[in-house]
């Protein structure tokens, strides 16, 4: 999340932008902030990255530093030429918008405006797609539109071919509630991105491109890229496909939650051999660091656990407490992941085996540390 770093935006405008960035349930970003004044020390315009349909659309928000109490104007992306919300009808009546009674003292105003515009943009894209002369798309829209949170948009694919992208939120469950002590600020969602090529004839329609998408935060629980998706059969439609994907995902999430327990047991078992860990990730249990010593040589062991634990063994990195390189940073070993391992072992046995392995390995690490000192 970008935060306005310098104080170049007038306070009234900065308050509104900061409120948008920190209070919106959607993750907006600011690309660039610049000035439109002759004397450039007042900044008053910025490019807002608006999350939409698993991508961002760029809108330029244009304030006026000379009258920061006035409502901003918005310039939409070049490809959205036809998008003009709050159209003032012939009788001078426009749809009620928050631009009409702008209150510069209210920091939530910009957020209200941007949310309002984003909703209108969503309907605009939906309308554009609905007007396409493509029987399959018409059918898909009519069958999946009832799903809450669905978004569609036109995208220009390769060779200037237009495509239609669907963003379908999957699983009607609150992922944030499943994780104990969840640190996520935003509601985590998993989306299915389906990109259809536009074609006039139903019969010649080719399969869409399908991909699971989640926020990067969810990666500490589950990597959706690794989930194997069922194949899209010829003549299939989304309404048929989605339940299958959701079943697979549900199983994967149950597994991922269970995996947290397995990792927690492993980290708890570390105490018996190494003593209490110096540091441990207590929510997702993906990381732990323990202190170890061989004679007078003391070193840290950083243990990283993947979401595939215990199928995948932990990756160990040793860090000397006594050897530093010329930049003053401690000497680290290369990642170690080639040691005896079985996913069927009990957690205590896993820890024992790692302890035994390190008893040997620390000697070569000590030599490695000394060598790296000599090379300087």
């Amino acid at each position, binding site marked *: 999340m970008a935060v306005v770093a310098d104080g170049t935006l007038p*306070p009234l405008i900065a308050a509104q932008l900061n409120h948008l960035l920190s209070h919106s349930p959607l993750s907006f970003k600011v690309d660039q902030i610049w000035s439109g*004044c002759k004397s450039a020390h007042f900044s008053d315009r910025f490019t807002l990255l608006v999350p939409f349909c698993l991508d961002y659309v760029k809108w330029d928000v*244009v304030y006026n530093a*000379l*009258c920061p109490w006035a409502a901003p*104007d918005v310039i939409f992306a070049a490809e959205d030429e036809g998008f003009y919300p709050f159209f*003032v009808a012939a009788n*001078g009546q426009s749809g009620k*918008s928050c631009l009409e009674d702008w209150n510069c003292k209210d920091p939530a105003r910009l957020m209200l405006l941007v949310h309002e515009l984003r909703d209108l943009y969503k309907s605009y894209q939906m309308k554009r797609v609905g007007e396409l002369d493509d029987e399959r798309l018409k059918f898909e829209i009519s069958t999946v539109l009832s799903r809450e949170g669905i978004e569609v948009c036109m995208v220009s694919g390769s060779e200037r071919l237009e495509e239609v992208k669907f963003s379908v939120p999957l699983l009607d469950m609150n992922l944030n509630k499943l994780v104990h002590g969840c640190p996520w600020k935003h509601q985590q969602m998993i989306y299915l991105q389906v990109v259809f090529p536009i074609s006039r004839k139903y019969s010649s329609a080719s399969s869409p491109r399908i991909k699971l998408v989640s926020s990067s935060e969810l990666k500490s629980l589950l990597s959706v890229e690794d989930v194997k998706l069922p194949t899209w059969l010829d003549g299939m439609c989304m309404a048929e496909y989605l339940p299958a994907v959701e079943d697979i995902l549900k199983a994967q999430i149950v597994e991922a939650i269970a995996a947290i327990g397995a990792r927690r047991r492993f980290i708890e078992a570390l105490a018996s051999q190494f003593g209490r860990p110096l540091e441990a990730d207590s929510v997702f249990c993906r990381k732990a660091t323990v202190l170890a010593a061989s004679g007078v040589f003391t070193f840290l062991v950083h243990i990283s656990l993947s979401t595939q634990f215990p199928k995948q063994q932990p990756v160990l990195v040793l860090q000397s407490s006594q050897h530093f390189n010329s930049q003053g940073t401690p000497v680290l070993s290369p990642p170690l992941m080639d040691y005896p391992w079985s996913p069927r072992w009990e957690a205590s046995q896993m820890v024992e085996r790692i302890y035994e392995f390190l008893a040997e390995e620390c000697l070569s690490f000590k030599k490695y540390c000394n060598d790296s000192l000599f090379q300087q």
Partner: protein
Amino acid sequence: MDDLPLQKIAISGSALASLIQRFSSSSGDVDGLLFGHLSQPTPSNLLEDDLPEPASTRSDSSTLVGNVTGFVCSGTVSSFYDSAGRLNEPALRRFVADRARPDQSQSLLGWFVGRRRTALRPSLREFNVSSSLSNETLNPQIEDSVKIPPCVFILLSTPLIAQSIHTHDHRAFQFRRSSGVFEPKSMDVVNIGPGFRVHYGAFSPNSPLPWLPCVVRDSSSMEIEEEKRRDSLTARRAALKEQKGLDLYAEGFDVGRLGRLMGSEAANYTSELESLYEKMLVKLEGLARNVEKSSARVLEQEQRNMRLRSKFTGFG
């Protein structure tokens, strides 16, 4: 008023230059109104057997040109509309009343916005303002002529990254009320370029001649005599006052004296002529000094405004 398509928009070089000057000398964004007239230049390659078509049937091959001949710059934004793009009728009428002329040589043609370092496409508010404006019926109604709503929109901007050679951008649009879209139109700058002579084909002066009272010395007309008698005292008084003013400027060179500057005697009066010029120069210098002083005071006031504004916005 019909929503007829324009072929292009033409603007005189001086109007465009002064528009850009107003924009680039302002401290922030500006907007204002555009005035001008419509013209329908006759194509030069007309064939004799061409039948005249009614204007309404020619939608694609329009030859209607929007000529921008003048503008009013507000020096700020939202001068005649609110943040949602609705018109502020009294403000708009005030602007228009100063400019629009009943003879249609200068009617309200549209509006413009100058905003620095922004994309050269209409914004949300500009769309709504154009849309409201195109429903306006402010222009004087004249029969037997082509009329369109004030639908021209000129957008002025500067490049996003400051450049030394390329300093300004502009783009002209026509807002089509029927379809609700901005159509980009080419903008001809009259007086510039090799083809400029063609522009004078449809030239019509738009500054009217001043009204000169023409008094018939013959005095045979009873009407004039009567009028004269009625107004003679006030008229004489006014004339006397004007004469005094003129004398002040003439510096003692009345018409009789000036008359001697011509003809055979002229050679003897070169020194007098020189002294006349000298006095004129002194006067010009005085004027220049006055302008300088008032400019300094304007600048001072602007700086004071700026300081107040900064204080208000929390920068002070």
